[in-house]
């Protein structure tokens, strides 16, 4: 009886899964086109899954092993089951393998079940709670029906008189398993993540983020430049269907593991943002419906079940809908600091930040609804090329006594020192002065653009004002094109990221270095000597745009080590560093929460027991120094280095030759 029932069950499930797959693909294809090399993507899939994805999952060894056992067991069992029970190839070897596979899957599912006993808050409940049972049903069912195939059970057992009942029960268990695993995979059950996730990895919108065989991970911005020349081209994302198809596919891959939620500074601060919920809302929007079925933590302060959306309905309610709620409220989108902690933690490689900025673009460019100081800052950027509205001709006032060499005079140097908007900020001017002192001590051939420099466009872009970003970027690129230099050095990681990773698309390709990287190189080349550190304990705060965005975790630590400082690491440091709250225009849009992000970060500093927190970003400096009653002093790496400099006249003369312009030799 089972022999006839099983193939029917299996092929029905497969057929239903195929129908579901077509429907799901249709949902994704509502999105805008996005060119992807399908074949190359599929070819890269195994590596992306086995190396990159497991690199992230592997941070939690327990889950990683569980997943290998369960998923590996399932894939093998599914294929073998189709062969053995579907096509009736009752080969004992295949049967044996099938037993093994289903056993492995069963063991895995036990661990899945154990995790669900007292699940951490970040995990979603709902259908996810039944998943371990479904996994068990599938694995036990498959195991039992395979026993006769390998002759471990007398074939007749299931054929005997009253055994039809047993057979029916078994068939029921298998049907349950098949329902969850095959049918649910494409019809929106928890197993959807496997189907969508695999395709998402293959057709990822930011393919350069994956490692290659040559090693190394590509650093890039996920933000694609808008086409502003074409008036018909849309400005950002208004409706779920305005995302590109592979973004929609990416949202669908979410496993609701909540790792993003656990690291999100805005969520921790009680601001109305939860990256997991946001991704789930996008899934709701792409299929149409309300968020009532969501079974995870809500956006702080916003109950679940009040929002709904549709693929072609606005995500954020337009002004005309007074009191109206759509899929997501605007303050959710404006809470994000673009720190990328969520992107870094997401095992499914989902790109939250880019989606958020895409939606912000619509709000800013089409609706003129940048909250709080947003409009003022953007107006300032347009009128004065800096967010503070300062007179652009005063950009170099802080250095009136420093006699800084100007690009306009020298035309050609080794290092172009990019000042950033910190040049207008009294606190950051101290950092800049320190940096100049260090460059002079190492006899670096450098110059500044001075009043020719403009804001890099970082804030404008994160606030969704792509037009102002491109205007600033293009003018900066035109200015830089007038001069010759080997590299740009800056003490601002935001400028660093924008100049290095975002200007390329607009035609400006530069070798950019953060000052910590550059100082580390100078030290390694023996061009700097330091007196040993005598101060107290020091910790280091990784800026998001230096660390997670650009992978530079080592150089700042090497510089501190060179100073004789042993860094007391905070619990969250390196790629897990917690944002200072200053990125993405968050201090400008200033969405209220229950706590302040910089307060939480200074608390991390306090817990590390450090008396000094070394930073490498003007924004971090401002945010962390703004914390009242802080237990630690905030010092930029450049300041610490400048304080420790030993000026050795002997070395001076011996090094003269290296100080000649290298640009000449290389470029000319």
């Amino acid at each position, binding site marked *: 009886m089972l022999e006839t029932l099983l193939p029917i069950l299996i092929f029905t499930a497969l057929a239903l899964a195929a129908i579901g797959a077509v429907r799901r693909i249709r949902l994704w294809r509502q999105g805008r086109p996005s060119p992807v090399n399908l074949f190359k993507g599929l070819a890269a899939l195994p590596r992306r899954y086995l190396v990159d994805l497991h690199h992230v999952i592997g941070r939690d060894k327990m889950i990683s092993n569980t997943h290998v056992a369960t998923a590996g067991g399932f894939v093998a069992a599914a294929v073998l089951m189709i062969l053995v029970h579907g096509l009736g190839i009752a080969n004992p070897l295949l049967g044996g393998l099938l037993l093994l596979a289903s056993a492995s899957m069963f063991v895995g599912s036990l661990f899945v079940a154990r995790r669900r006993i007292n699940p951490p808050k970040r995990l979603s409940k709902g259908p996810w709670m039944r998943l371990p049972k479904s996994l068990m049903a599938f694995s036990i069912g498959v195991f039992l029906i395979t026993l006769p195939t390998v002759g471990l059970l007398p074939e007749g057992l299931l054929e005997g008189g009253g055994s039809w009942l047993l057979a029916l029960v078994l068939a029921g268990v298998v049907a349950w398993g098949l329902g969850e695993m095959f049918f649910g995979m494409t019809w929106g059950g928890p197993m959807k993540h496997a189907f969508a996730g695999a395709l998402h990895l293959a057709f990822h919108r930011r393919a350069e983020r994956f490692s290659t065989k040559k090693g190394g991970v590509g650093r890039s911005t996920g933000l694609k430049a808008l086409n502003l020349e074409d008036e018909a081209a849309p*400005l950002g994302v208004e409706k779920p269907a305005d995302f590109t198809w592979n973004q929609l596919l990416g949202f669908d891959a979410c496993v609701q593991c909540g790792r993003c939620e656990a690291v999100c500074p805005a969520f921790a601060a009680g601001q109305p943002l939860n990256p997991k919920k946001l991704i789930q809302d996008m899934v709701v929007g792409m299929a149409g419906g309300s968020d009532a079925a969501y079974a995870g933590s809500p956006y702080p302060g916003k109950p679940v079940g009040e929002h709904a959306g549709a693929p072609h309905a606005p995500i954020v309610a337009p002004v*005309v809908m007074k009191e109206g709620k759509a899929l997501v409220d605007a303050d959710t989108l404006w809470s994000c600091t673009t720190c990328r902690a969520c992107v870094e933690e997401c095992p499914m490689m989902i790109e939250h930040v880019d989606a958020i900025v895409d939606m912000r673009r619509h709000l800013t460019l*089409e*609706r*003129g*609804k940048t909250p709080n100081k947003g*409009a003022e800052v953007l107006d300032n950027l347009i*009128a004065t090329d800096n967010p503070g509205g*300062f007179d*652009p001709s005063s950009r170099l006032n802080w250095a009136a006594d420093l006699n800084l060499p100007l690009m306009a005079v020298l035309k050609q140097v080794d290092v172009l020192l990019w000042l950033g908007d910190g040049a207008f900020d009294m606190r950051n001017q101290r950092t800049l002065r320190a940096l100049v002192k260090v460059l002079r001590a190492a006899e670096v051939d450098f110059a500044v653009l001075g009043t020719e420099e403009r804001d890099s466009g970082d804030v404008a872009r994160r606030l969704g004002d792509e037009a102002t970003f491109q205007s600033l970027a293009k003018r900066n690129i035109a200015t830089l094109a007038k001069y010759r230099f080997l590299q740009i050095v800056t003490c601002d990681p935001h400028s660093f990221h924008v100049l290095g990773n975002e200007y390329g698309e607009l035609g400006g390709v530069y070798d950019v270095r953060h000052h910590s990287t550059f100082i580390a190189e100078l030290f390694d080349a023996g061009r700097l000597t330091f007196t040993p550190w005598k101060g107290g304990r020091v910790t280091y705060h990784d800026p998001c745009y230096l660390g997670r965005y650009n992978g530079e975790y080592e150089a700042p630590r090497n510089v501190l080590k060179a100073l004789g400082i042993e860094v007391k690491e905070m619990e969250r440091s390196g790629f897990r560093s917690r944002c200072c709250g200053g990125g993405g225009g968050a201090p400008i849009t200033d969405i209220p929460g229950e706590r302040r992000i910089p307060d939480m970060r200074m608390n991390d500093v306090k817990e590390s027991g450090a008396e000094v927190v070394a930073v490498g970003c003007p924004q971090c400096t401002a945010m962390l120094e703004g914390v009242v009653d802080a237990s630690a002093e905030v010092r930029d790496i450049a300041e610490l280095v400048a304080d420790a400099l030993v000026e050795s006249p002997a070395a001076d003369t011996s090094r003269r030759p290296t100080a000649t312009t290298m640009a000449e030799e290389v470029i000319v």
Partner: protein
Amino acid sequence: MQPDLHQKQQQQGIDVAVLVSIGRHPTTGRARRAEQDARGLELALAMEAELPGTRISMLHAGSQDDSSEAALRGYLGMATGVGMGLESMTLLEQPEGSDAIPALAKHLAATSPQLVITGARAERGEGSGLLPYALAEHLGWPLVNSLASVEKVENGVVTLLQALPRGQRRRLKVRLPAIISVDEAAPAARQSAFGPARRATFEITPTSPEADSELAQWHLAPARKRPKRLKIVKAASARDRFKAAASKSEGKGGQVLTDVTPEQGAEAIYKLLKEEDVLR
């Protein structure tokens, strides 16, 4: 519901013309939407939201070039809702240096809006603030300056709130048509959005330009910055600093020197600079 309905019937939308000029950023001198004119448009947009049926038209007299177009689009970008009727603006084309008043007056007389809103003073050119008055004189309409808000329009009479010094307000009833001018007392202008600004079009209307003969005789030069007196604050606590910053300083001391030789004068100035710690 009855009185509400009654009121609704009496309130009716009207035709509003907003006069906009090209502004000048105080620090960089870049062309932009003028601050006060933008507030004027904001007022009109608020009226449109309150009074269904209100139609806004925007009017600018001047030449058309790239930088002025970008500035004018700054106004057009304020209409971000669907069907706000600001998909275009009328541009009375005339060369730089022409008198805007005759062109505007002629156009307004021909199109006869019920309400004309304008900023009190332009940010470039003469900036004398006379335009609203000259227009009112030309058209023979009443003018209300320094407007804070438009409260309601009933049977051809508009109720206005005029701003007076020290936050005082005066309620006025004015028969339409009328001209109102706005300054810093009116609500700040909303953000201008790139998309609608880019899509909007200009309806270019040629005029018979009249050269501004008076302006041509003027000699224009950048204003000299008047030096600000330094305020020396000796404060130990944040509270003292705040008090010092918030309080108005009264002039005290000082001396008037008359009939002195240049040397004596220089001596006195030098002494003062030393006292004030400007020279050390």
